């Protein structure tokens, strides 16, 4: 296209600007959906493990299942660092989303640390925060399935309040579909 430098008419300039801005817009990084999927699998595994251990007659030990959250945390941090290194481009939205997921990770750790005070509500809080993260990510990518995944998480969080413990853990695990499927679809859409 540009093998040598030459000058343009005003119309050509404007056309070029529009074309280049369109090229850079709506760009989704490869593997962008991975972070939501990993958190999805982690929450599902922890919920089912907690439920399973509780049903086996060890309710005191069951909450330790949530130590799996550290896997999600480690992945979030490593993903952000590696992604940053190999990114061919970084947009303002990329930075906002990195901060959003980092903030989510900090909230998860804080909820984990306060788990005994929050009791069973900590699971509902996790679900609400996860919903928020997905909802905002969906808007940033202009990718509605992700936003709907967020809404699905909120519905599950509210629904879990009406189901006795530990059965609401099953609702939490089932809500995983709300974030794994959009994450998978987002990866398919990724073009950079």
């Amino acid at each position: 296209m540009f093998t040598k430098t030459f000058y343009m008419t005003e119309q050509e300039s404007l056309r070029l600007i529009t074309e280049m801005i369109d090229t850079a817009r709506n760009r989704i990084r490869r593997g962008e959906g991975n972070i939501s999927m990993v958190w999805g699998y982690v929450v599902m595994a922890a919920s089912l493990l907690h439920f399973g251990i509780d049903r086996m007659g060890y309710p005191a030990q069951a909450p330790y299942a949530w130590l799996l959250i550290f896997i999600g945390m480690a992945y979030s941090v490593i993903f952000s660092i590696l992604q940053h290194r190999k990114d061919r481009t970084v947009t303002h939205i990329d930075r906002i989303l990195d901060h959003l997921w980092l903030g989510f990770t900090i909230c998860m750790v804080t909820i984990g640390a306060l788990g005994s005070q929050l009791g069973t509500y900590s699971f509902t809080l996790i679900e609400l925060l996860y919903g928020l993260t997905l909802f905002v990510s969906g808007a940033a990518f202009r990718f509605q399935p992700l936003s709907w995944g967020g809404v699905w998480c909120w519905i599950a969080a509210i629904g879990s309040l009406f189901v006795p413990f530990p059965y609401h853990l099953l609702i939490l695990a089932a809500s995983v579909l709300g974030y794994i499927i959009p994450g998978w679809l987002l990866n398919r859409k990724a073009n950079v």
Partner: protein
Amino acid sequence: MFKDLDPVLHAQLRLAVMSLLIGIEQADFTFLKEKTQSTAGNLSVQLTKLEEAGYITIEKTYDHKRPRTICRVTPAGIAAFEAYVTALKTYLGGTS
């Protein structure tokens, strides 16, 4: 009276690079080369001109021992681009 179009920006490849960088906070050399479909030599020369004008910064780093050039638009570059677009609109609108 018509405003002068910035000669640094009023060149095809330099304008293409600036238009890409305006929408993106930073981009590497490979991305710019691919999107502008330019030759490495020409792109390199034009990036240097943009850097000399203070419109972009060029950072040379290594990614797993492979050299990597990262370009970022500066506040001066954003201001120049905005002024260029305003001047362009004046020309196209035919008003001063």
